[in-house]
């Protein structure tokens, strides 16, 4: 089972890089959907089959893998935006930063005081690297929709860490967290639509009237 989860985690890292380097919004959203679906396998791969892990996996697959990407895809279809133009930090520099951060995460995770079972595993470095990739996407892109994708990747990073601590998050809380994520993206989708109607673009550069 460890091989399976390691494979999943490596896939997650690959998706991070794809999202950082791609300028096509549709491809980015599909990548996040893939990442969500892969994450749904992780609880099963690490903790084995049980009611808790099955429900968690089903919930993650339904929301992170299907429903949320569908919401986002619908949003970009309506606003007819395909590409991220002129990011604040270019695609190559963000990729490089992402690579550095991923390497850093692996080195850093080795220094952390982990319990023996987690020593040398891929979980913690992947979680940190994904977290950072999401953050990078969030701050380096202008299109509001890419920022939502960044937020989702960041949440995925935290989700990976949470899988290690399945006991800490009882099913009810975990379900609530997923539901909140869905509602958050739903509300963001509505705001996206309003931004587009009002400004005829999803460029967050336009959102700069409020300042001192």
């Amino acid at each position: 089972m460890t091989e399976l989860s390691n494979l999943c985690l490596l896939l997650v890292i690959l998706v991070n890089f794809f999202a950082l380097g791609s300028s096509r919004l549709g491809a980015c959203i599909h990548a996040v959907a893939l990442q969500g679906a892969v994450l749904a396998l992780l609880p099963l791969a690490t903790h084995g089959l049980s009611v808790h892990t099955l429900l968690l996996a089903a919930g993650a697959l339904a929301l992170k893998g299907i429903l949320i990407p569908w919401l986002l895809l619908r949003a970009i279809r309506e606003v007819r935006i395909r590409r991220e133009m002129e990011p604040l930090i270019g695609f190559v520099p963000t990729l490089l930063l992402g690579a550095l951060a991923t390497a850093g995460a692996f080195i850093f995770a080795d220094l952390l005081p982990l319990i023996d079972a987690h020593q040398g595993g891929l979980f913690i470095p992947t979680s940190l690297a994904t977290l950072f990739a999401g953050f990078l996407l969030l701050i380096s892109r202008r299109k509001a929709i890419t920022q939502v994708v960044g937020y989702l990747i960041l949440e995925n990073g935290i989700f990976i860490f949470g899988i290690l601590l399945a006991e800490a998050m009882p099913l009810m809380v975990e379900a609530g967290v997923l539901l909140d994520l869905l509602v958050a993206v739903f509300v963001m989708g509505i705001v996206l639509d309003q931004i587009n109607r009002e400004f005829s673009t999803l460029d967050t550069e336009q959102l700069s009237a409020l300042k001192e």
Partner: protein
Amino acid sequence: MMLAALILLPLALVPVAWLAPWYRVRSWLLPLAGTIHLLLVVLALGNVPDAAPGEWIGLDPLSRLVLLVASPLYLGCALYAVDYLEMRRERGNRTMVPCLLLFLSALSMAAMSRHLGLMWLALETTTLASAPLIYFNRNRLSIEATWKYLLICSVGIALAMLGLLFFAYAALRGGVPVSLLLSDLLAAGPVLSRPWLHAGFVLLLVGFGTKMGLAPLHAWKPDAYGEAPGLVGALLAGGLTSLAFLAVLRTMQVMAAAGAQGVARPLLLGLGLLSLLLAALFMMRQGDFKRMLAYSSIEHMGLLAVGVGIGGLATFGALLHMINNSLAKGCLFLSAGNIHRAFASKRLADVRGALVALPFSGALFLTAFLAVTGTPPFGIFLSEFTILRGIFGAGQLWVGLAVLVLLATVFIGMGASVLAVSQGEPTERDLAFTDRFLLVAPPLLLLLAVLFLGLYIPESLRLLLEQAQALVEGGT
């Protein structure tokens, strides 16, 4: 049972509010929910014992304090909302009322949850429920404010979730069963693994600090408070910030149980002082009186952080200050909302002579300014004085002096703007808006409550504050 009703009752009214076809009925659901909530809170405070270990929902002195302040504030805002929504029929209330009800439900849950994961969930729900409220005016500026609010607070609270997981890992590494129940974490305090605990605290402080609006994590605050309707601003500045402060206090409880207060306090103190400094600077040349209120909120959040960062008597003062600040902010935002409505502007350049044009709202705004900047005999004077006594008593002379200077700066900066708004000849002669009973009575009552707390603190409240302080400082 009674506690469950506090959460479920407003929640049950959400679909009712959404489906009800009558505009006035929908509006009146808010005071209905608020009144029942307040009655239940008063009953629960007297009759429900403190939570036993292992319970997910329950009361302790801290949650009692927060409920005690949030519930009357909510009722005040709910009453105000009736006439406000009547005045703004063109905007509709089919989004506003359900969102406000959901906000009340999440607020009760956040105040009473004893499981940190559940508390996180409730806090995130308050963010989501309030985002559509900020967007009430549906213009470019409010979209921008809503987007910043949603994104910054969502990312902040996501980091807080990571912090919670770090706390859980600290327990795992410490060799005790993993649990995010507050009672379990407190019991496991001494064996929690230090590195994870410290890292978790920093993340939690960043996450909940974002919701509180502590500098430098406050970027969303002036925008959101500036663009949201007055009553939403009142709920955010008085209610939501108190909840976020409660969340910070919960993490302080865990830190105290682990004996790691020495790590936590300087961080809080630093953020608090930075917030005070930043608020004082931006208050000086503020051309927009609603944004000015946001900086006032940042200032008071800073004071709370400084109080808890010093500890002892200052923590007691900070808890008292939380109550006073919420009530005063309620009055300030509601009366500012009236002035904004009447002059159809919140720029200082456009608004003059509020005292003449709106005798009641203008006077309330001016008095609430005096109250909020710590003029005696209002309650805030007392709580700021207590915090300062705590700071000097702890031997932190320079911190105390810095706080004094910054408070004075805030007074001058805010005073200049408030006087400009309220004095002089009105710029507009015939205003469409006039003071109405329900738009003036709630802020007046909130202000009277602040005044009352400045003159007399009931024995039971003092006891509750002392118990709450003991909890934060690691007692039982």
